[in-house]
């Protein structure tokens, strides 16, 4: 299936056009940095070491649209970069681990978003909240770690 995608006409165009591939890469890098950064900042606020003068809800709401716009752009541009070597990526274990970590990180982002109003009403930040925020940070930084390990371990990208 992935091999068929890799040999589609538009994928070949993307893979051979330096400008087009570069443009998609710029979108991917920028979007990844923006999405990981905004979500990590929200988690840092939960840990109580940033924006302490502002409520958690206001920080989370300020950053939430940027996180999802970043995540969406990173996913779309990432898929386009994936298509160029789809067969090899799909078969590579580090790439599969990266997708798994991204999935877990996205679930944690949603779960935290869902609990933010409750945590915001508490007089002190619950221990569970801090723990989950820490796990979220580890997962998001893990997505970047897997991204840099893919070329190092497989030679892809």
């Amino acid at each position, binding site marked *: 299936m992935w091999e068929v995608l890799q040999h589609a006409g538009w994928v070949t165009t993307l893979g051979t056009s*330096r400008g087009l*591939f*570069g443009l998609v*890469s*710029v979108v991917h*890098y*920028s979007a*990844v*940095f*923006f999405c*990981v*950064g*905004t979500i*990590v*900042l929200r988690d*840092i606020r939960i840990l109580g070491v*940033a*924006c*302490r*003068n*502002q409520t958690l*809800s*206001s*920080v989370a*709401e*300020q*950053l*939430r*649209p*940027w996180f999802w716009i970043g995540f969406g752009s990173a996913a779309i541009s990432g898929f386009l970069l994936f298509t160029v070597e789809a067969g090899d990526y799909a078969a590579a274990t580090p790439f599969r681990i990266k997708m798994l970590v991204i999935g877990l990180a996205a679930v944690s982002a949603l779960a935290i978003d869902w609990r933010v109003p409750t945590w915001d009403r508490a007089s002190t930040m619950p221990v569970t909240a801090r723990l989950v925020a820490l796990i979220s940070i580890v997962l998001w*930084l893990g997505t*970047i*770690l897997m*991204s*840099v*390990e893919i*070329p*190092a*371990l*497989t*030679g892809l990208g």
Partner: protein
Amino acid sequence: MYDAVLAGCRWLENTPWGVAVRGSSWMYPLALWVHFVGLSVWLATSLALDLRLMGVGSRRLNAVELSTGLFAWNWIGFAVAFVGGFLLLSAEATTYAANTGFRLKLIVLIPAALIWHVIVQKMVQKKTPAWTATAQTSAIGKWAGLIEFLLWILVVSASVSFLLTNALTHA
């Protein structure tokens, strides 16, 4: 002048950390990871403020609240990105120095974006009314935010162009 730069690059490549990052299969990706983690924090804190100045997105916090609340993490992100970037540069300094995209990034774009960033940050934090006018956004604030936003995207573009022209494999 270029000879002096080249000599400096060779010296960097022969420093213990330069040799280590270049020669090790795990240190290069680790340095890249550090660079990217720092960049994520730096760009998110900087661009979130730029977009707020432009009046785009949520308005739960105003530019002053956002800038002061994220100030420490903004510069922590910068410091982390700098350390990672310095290690990456040390590993292959002469290759970097010869690349047009990298020269553009380090000599023109980053200094320009950084100076602009510091000016914007100062103006916002001094609560200059013309820039921040709390709930509303001002024309000058919008332009200031837009220019900084574009400058950082150009920095990323120059870096990507370097990566694509010098496809160095560290497998």
